C-alpha cells in the first residue's frame, strides 16, 4: 500500500503568510522532519526547539497540512552575543496530503521541542452504487 505525502515546494516558498505577521518581521525557518509509516498511520516528527503546545498551530485546509510553531523571544538583556550558529526564528512547514489520509482523525502533540503528527490512513471503502433502470 503506497501512501505518500508530497512536498509542495511552491507553497513552501512563502516565508510570510498571514500567520507570520509579528512586530518585527520574524524569520520563518522550515523545520527538519522525519516521516514514517506503518499499516495504519503516517507519522511526522519535526524539530521545533522552543515551541510548546500553546505556541504550536497545526491546521489543515483542503489537503494541505500546515504546521506553524512560534518561539518566544529570549530575554537576553545585558548580554552580548559572542558566537552564533542559529538565529531567532519561528518554524513553518506545509505538506500536501493525498486522499488516503483521514483528515478528521489527525493527532498532533509536541514535547521537548519535537512535534509529532499522526495521520491515520483511511481504509479504502467500496461504495456500491445502485443501478436504476432507465
Amino acid at each position, binding site marked *: 500500500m503506497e501512501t*505518500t*505525502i508530497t512536498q509542495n515546494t511552491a507553497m513552501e516558498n512563502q516565508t510570510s503568510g498571514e500567520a507570520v505577521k509579528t512586530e518585527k518581521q520574524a*524569520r520563518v*525557518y*522550515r*523545520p*527538519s*522532519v*522525519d*516521516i*514514517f*509509516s*506503518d499499516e495504519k498511520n*503516517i*507519522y511526522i*516528527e*519535526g*524539530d*521545533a*526547539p*522552543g*515551541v*510548546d503546545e500553546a505556541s504550536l498551530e497545526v491546521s489543515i485546509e483542503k489537503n494541505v497540512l500546515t504546521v506553524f510553531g512560534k518561539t518566544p523571544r*529570549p530575554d*537576553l538583556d*545585558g*548580554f*552580548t*552575543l*559572542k*558566537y*552564533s*550558529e*542559529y*538565529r531567532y526564528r519561528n518554524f513553518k512547514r506545509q505538506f500536501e496530503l493525498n486522499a488516503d489520509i483521514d483528515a478528521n482523525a489527525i493527532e498532533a502533540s509536541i514535547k*521537548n*521541542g*519535537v512535534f509529532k503528527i499522526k495521520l491515520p490512513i483511511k481504509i479504502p471503502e467500496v461504495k456500491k452504487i445502485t443501478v436504476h433502470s432507465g
Partner: protein
Amino acid sequence: MYLTNFLHNIQKMPLPLFLPDLGSDFLESGYGAPSFPALQIYANTEHVLVRAEIPGLTRDEISLSITDDVLTISGELKSAMADVKIIRRERAAGMFQKTVELPSPVDADKAEAVLKNGILEITLPIRESVKPREIPVTGE
C-alpha cells in the same frame, strides 16, 4: 550515524558571526558546516550564557562537561519509532559531541543548566580572577 565536531576557537572567528540559512540541509553540508547541536554564546561581565538547540532529548540524556574555558555537550539521539517504514529522514540521529571554547574561563561548579522545550540554557559564572578590576591610581 556518528556526529562529531572539532574544537571551535572563538577568538579566531569573525564577530559577529552571520551564517546563511542552511535550511534542512544543515547537517549534510559537510566539512565546515555547523554541526549538532546549534549553539549561541552570550556573555556579560558576570556570566557566560550558552544556548543550545537540542530538541527531543530529556535532561538525563545530555552530558555536559566544563573545564576552564572549554565546554563539551554530548548525548545520543535515539529514534523512538520501531516497526515503521522510513519515508523521509532529515533530522539528526545518533551520538553527538560538540566542544566549544568559551569567551572567558568559568567556574564549573557554579554552573546552572536548564532544559526547556528542547533548548538548553547553560549559565556559567565567569571566574573571579579573570574579571576586569579597577586599579586605583596613587600618586599625583
